[in-house]
């Protein structure tokens, strides 16, 4: 037999000990250091940027699911899917155009004309946890110099309530 009973028990106890020791040291150091991080309140940079910039109310505003569903049926509203292409192809809001945050600089300029003509531009990504919708909204605002809406619930909230295009 490869392992004896005592070996496995010792291995488990030691493994737990190492993980607990590392975690404890990390927590203590974070507590005493002057620039320690708040353990349970992570904020993505884009949300921090918007919150701190004061642009939330005019340039970039957030919309909920009901508004997104209403706008989806409204002519002249362009939805911008900020997820990577692979995720976009698995299903997106009908008529949405794909401008992934990572390739914004390459993709967005080519679509500028249709975005300028749109009555409203709405960005979204996968769910409330993702950051791309806000990142793309900020970049679109800089590119188009117009208000941008962000559907924060994203595809996860939308997919069971409205039509999905593939």
């Amino acid at each position, binding site marked *: 037999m*490869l*392992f004896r009973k005592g*070996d496995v028990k*010792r*291995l488990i106890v*030691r*493994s737990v*000990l*190492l*993980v607990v*020791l*590392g*975690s404890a*040291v*990390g*927590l203590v*150091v*974070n507590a005493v250091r002057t*620039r*320690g*991080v*708040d*353990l*349970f*309140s*992570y*904020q*993505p*940079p884009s949300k921090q940027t918007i919150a701190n910039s004061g642009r939330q109310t005019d340039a970039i505003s957030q919309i909920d699911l009901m508004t997104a569903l209403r706008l989806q049926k409204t002519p002249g509203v362009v939805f911008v899917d900020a997820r*990577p*292409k*692979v*995720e976009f192809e698995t299903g997106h809001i009908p008529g949405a155009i794909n401008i992934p945050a*990572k390739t914004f600089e390459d993709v967005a300029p080519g679509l500028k004309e249709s975005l300028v003509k749109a009555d409203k531009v709405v960005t979204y990504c*996968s769910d409330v*946890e*993702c*950051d791309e919708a806000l990142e793309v909204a900020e970049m679109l605002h800089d590119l188009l110099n117009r208000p941008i809406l962000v559907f924060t619930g994203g595809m996860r909230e939308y997919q069971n309530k409205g039509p999905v295009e593939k």
Partner: protein
Amino acid sequence: MMGASGGNILRRILWNRVTALVFRMFVGAVFVYASMDKIVHPGQFAQMVNNYRIVPHVLINLFAVILPWIELILGLCLILGVFSDAASVVTAGLLLVFITASIVALTRGLDISCGCFSTSGEGARAGWDVIIRNVILIAMLAQSFFFDLGRRRLRAGA
């Protein structure tokens, strides 16, 4: 084609005390090095963790504070030979987690920095090279773990 004697030589090189020691210390040094920048910049490392979109936001900072210190402790244990059996197992487990995260990033089409050694965002991308590197590190750990286990068996039997 490698003959029987060639195979024996390779086996002798791979299955000996010095190789096991070098492999264990090498992986330990990699982990100590990997932990440094993350320990100094936990906030930036949290951003790296967030980019994978696997850990819930509420746990990202906790994860970013704890993980580098676990890496440091594991690395030191591997280098110094303290609890090296358990350190090898936990380190291999962590490497498997990193491999899984890289595969998830690949399948999602995410072009992100792996956050392996640097929090600057300019390091290696999460992709196949990171996966292959981690598989090699796991193989090195397996060699040293099973060689040491075999030696302990021999000592216990003697």
